[in-house]
């Protein structure tokens, strides 16, 4: 159901969550196992490590109409591949400030650390992220009109 | 703390909140504290037109009016860019907890600032609230204090009585460990006395219940003094006028003398009794 006007009653954002396979994806699974709920707008894409997330993926998501993109990885020091999340942290700091400069508000992008044991934390993070993006309304920057279905 | 000491020349002037009791029944506490500060090269500037802190911190989340006098004092100290020093344990407890509310309790801070907007006051937790004991420990430093001691209290066996208000709740007061405090013991050792550790030093004296019912404070005070005595203390020192009152009432027969910590400080620093007035 496409919605054109931001903040319209009942409007729901499109949110892409990249989760690393070892910590955050398991954390999301644990949230499910414990039946903790978070908004259905969050759609998770599994990647081996948060450092697999190419800035292009995030730009693509905004181009295709995402309203928020969040990256979740293991806590610093706990990366399954030792150092992947440090790369993520540095890359995304740069990318997010660039996006901010382009008019994609900082609240629409986030990096969070969620371990495999933190189902509750995953839910808390998603709830707050969805709330923030919902408050901002629809993302109008970077979106490619040709990608809209109607 | 190196950072603190580097800034010391700038911050030898402190805002001072004496509180109602120090202006009345506990005048000596006020006088000794000011006198000793003067000897140590510290200026305590009394906040003009300060209002009573209310004596006890409101544990309810929706009492705003009771917190306003503290916020006014905090805001005044913030305006002057000074740390806020208190001597009375009760004032310290109330102001420190209200300061914490203003930093952490968003709802309380907003309401309090709404009240005070009419007075042109706004406060968002800028002031650092320190007790006189912390002033001695962290600002002057016990090493420096030791050099200023002219008459060491050699041979005096002294127990610290912390009571409740200096320490609890410890994550807010952040002065010392709630169960195993050392600040007064270290002060006493600095002054040349033998500190005596006894378990009842952080148990309640009975507090304001004394107004209605003397039996509970009597029981509590006796237990405290007997424990101090049994562990070898001849003197017990406190920073709180109400503790002082409750303990003093039971002093007789226990063989322990109850004093303000400032009395020993004044003695060790050689503060002339008259100078203190």
């Amino acid at each position, binding site marked *: 159901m496409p919605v054109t006007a931001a903040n319209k009653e009942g409007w729901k954002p499109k949110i892409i969550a990249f989760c690393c396979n*070892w910590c955050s*994806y398991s954390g999301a*699974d644990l*949230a*499910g*196992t414990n*039946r*903790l*709920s978070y908004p*259905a707008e969050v*759609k*998770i*894409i*599994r*990647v*081996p*490590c948060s*450092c*697999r*997330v*190419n*800035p*292009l*993926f995030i730009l*693509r*998501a905004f181009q*295709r*109409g*995402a309203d928020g993109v969040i990256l979740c990885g*293991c806590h610093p*020091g*706990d990366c*399954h*591949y*030792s*150092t*992947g999340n440090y*790369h993520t942290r540095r890359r995304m700091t740069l990318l997010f400030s660039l996006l901010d400069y382009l008019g994609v508000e900082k609240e629409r992008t986030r990096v969070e650390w969620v*371990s*495999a*044991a933190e189902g509750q934390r995953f*839910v808390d993070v998603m709830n707050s992220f969805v709330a923030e993006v919902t408050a901002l309304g629809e993302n109008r920057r970077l979106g490619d009109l040709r990608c809209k*279905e109607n | 703390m190196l950072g603190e000491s580097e800034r010391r020349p700038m911050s030898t002037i402190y805002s001072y909140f004496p509180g109602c009791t120090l202006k009345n029944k506990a005048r000596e506490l006020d006088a000794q504290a000011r006198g000793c500060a003067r000897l140590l090269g510290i200026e305590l500037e009394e906040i003009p037109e300060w209002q009573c802190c209310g004596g006890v911190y409101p544990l309810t989340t929706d009492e705003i009016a009771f917190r306003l006098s503290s916020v006014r004092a905090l805001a005044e100290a913030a305006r002057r860019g000074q740390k806020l020093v208190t001597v009375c344990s009760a004032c310290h407890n109330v102001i420190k907890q209200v300061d914490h509310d203003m930093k*952490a309790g968003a709802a309380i801070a907003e309401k309090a600032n709404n009240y005070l907007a009419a007075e042109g006051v706004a406060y968002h937790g800028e002031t650092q609230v320190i007790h006189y004991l912390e002033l001695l420990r962290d600002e002057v430093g016990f090493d420096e204090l030791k050099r200023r001691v002219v008459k060491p209290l050699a041979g005096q066996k002294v127990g610290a009585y912390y009571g409740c208000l200096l320490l609890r*709740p*410890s*994550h807010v007061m952040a002065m010392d*460990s*709630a*169960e*195993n405090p050392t600040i007064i013991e270290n002060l006493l050792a600095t002054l040349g006395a033998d500190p005596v*550790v*006894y*378990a*009842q030093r952080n*148990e309640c004296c009975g507090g304001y219940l004394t107004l209605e019912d003397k039996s509970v404070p009597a029981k509590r005070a006796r237990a405290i003094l*007997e*424990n101090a005595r*049994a*562990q070898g203390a001849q003197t017990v020192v406190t920073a709180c006028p109400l503790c002082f009152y409750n303990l003093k009432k039971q002093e007789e027969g226990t063989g322990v003398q109850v004093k303000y910590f400032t009395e020993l400080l004044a003695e060790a620093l050689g503060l002339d009794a008259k100078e203190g007035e």
Partner: protein
Amino acid sequence: MQKIGVFVCWCGSNIAATVDVKAVAEAARSVPGVVFSADYQYMCSQAGQTMITDAIREYGLTGVVVCSCSPRMHEATFRKAVQKVGLNPYMLEVANIREQCSWVHKDMAVGTEKAIMLMKAAVAKVQLNAPLEAGKSPVTKRALVIGGGIAGMQAALDIADAGYDVDIVEKNPSIGGKMAQLDKTFPTLDCSSCIVTPKMVEVGQHERIHIYSYSEIEEVKGFVGNFDVTIRRKARYVDETKCTGCGACMEKCPMKKVPNEFNQGLDTRSCIYIPFAQAVPKVATIDPNYCLKLNKGACGICSKVCAAGAINYEAKDELVTEKYGAIVAATGFEVIDVSKYDEYAYTQSPDVVTSLEYERLMNAAGPTGGHLKRPSDGKEPKTIVFVQCVGSRECCDPGKGELRGGKPYCSKVCCMYTAKHAMLTKDHYPDTDIYVFYIDVRTPGKNFDEFYRRAVEQYGVHYIKGAVGKVTPEGGKLKVQASDLILNEQLHIDADMVVLAAAIEPSPTARHLATMLTASMDTNDFFTEAHPKLRPVESPTAGVFLAGMCQGPKDIPETVAQAGAAAAKAIGLLAKNELVGNPCVAHSDEWMCNGCSQCETVCPYGAITYVDKEFKMPDRTVKIRRVAQVNEAVCQGCGACTVTCPSGAMDLKGFTNKEIMAEVDALCR
């Protein structure tokens, strides 16, 4: 064009209650490329798997999407199934519509809509998937066990008995761990030393076990089957091969005031020491913190009295590197420091002790020779108060109170060892009055509750539902103020000793080790299991197994059972001649690679090397270019290189740029 089949699982009502599975299957049919879709109650069942394989045969499917539980659960199951009928397993994708959809949403319409999107994203990915073949790597047939307590010893023995070499790395001078310090064990009251010391001897004498005592792990490299581990052998200043353990040095050592760790600091030992009589290896160690020779250049007596000439003051730490196929972590536990719980006066009176200290006071080999004497004046205590849950089961929100080192979990063993302490005390000193303050008495275990009831009914131990609020040392007594919640009273007991059941915490060394092993930990620093129910002795990091308290509080039989299970898993790994690797590894397009070396610098495994290679150019010339090459056996597939590559030459098989973008596109529709 792929021919894709979509299979939607009900998971009984787990999925079907919140997701309209028929609607998902129906929606799949209109997705381009999908030629077949179906739904079924349990896709993971034999019948469900057959449904998939039949459809592959019948419709000639080239790709499969299963909408079911998390891929972490059954991806391997389904991949194995499709492989049987000749489909490459990496042509299958799982859409997680249970953990990440039906279980977290309540509304059917919402759940169904999301499930359809997840299905479409999976289909979009399969469209671009390519068959992958996994590489193979050899297995080093040698295991490393970290920690020489009962867990580590048992795991080492089991692996060694299966015919594999095992090294134990123990940070202390002797193996034996905490169990060697215990007096008796519950619920049988058999002597702890009598059962643990023969194990220590067995380990010490086993021809396939080598003990690195007084050693620590310095570095871990490699991966499952092929770990390279550097071990720091701390200088003990005594040549292990020469020392006979005669003890002459300990007798003559003039520095005898060193707190004795083995007795929890309740007495002292010499500076050169063998921690206890049954130590394995039974060789002396010089404590560098106290030695007069090492610190001041004086003394040197031990060297003079050592007939074997084993003393070497010049010794330095040594680094040893070994190869291992499997690693068992068995780093054990400590009890928390209770000095911040000083309402119990632990720092104020020596008669307030922790349970582990009490254990030493009861032990015949302990500082009092097994006579229960209180530390302050050596008198027999007549009244003893036991306090349960000191630091266990706490809320630890830093915004709501001072953190004192408390733990949110139940330490599990305290209820039982306290009953044991109470009974043993009553056995030896029947007229002792014993009070146990408890919140709940937790005794799930064979013969456990019977054991606790015996303490109450036969021994007359006073169990009081309540807490101790304050302990006041005064006049040689400990004045205990406590609550009795059943009688609704505040109690005041004059006790001679107070024993604190301090919470158990993982060894503080474990956190650093976990980082080196890239094994994950929970918020309490316990190692996490690969799956809490189905893979409880494996770490999520392949080749790393878990035994004992390092994974969570447990008693001795549970520890031994887990150690045996971890050993079985390690043996299963070591028994293989080669391991099938992860085919999802990085791959460089040599034509696009510009030879910048950026990927090489970010690779944590050193899997990327640069080679000079001849290229036949379109103009028929030959050009030598420097390009990246990935060693597929070493690459672990994190993908760091793919993002850092400026020319876009590096990609990750199974998670290619195009595949992930296709998922992004599908989810943004």
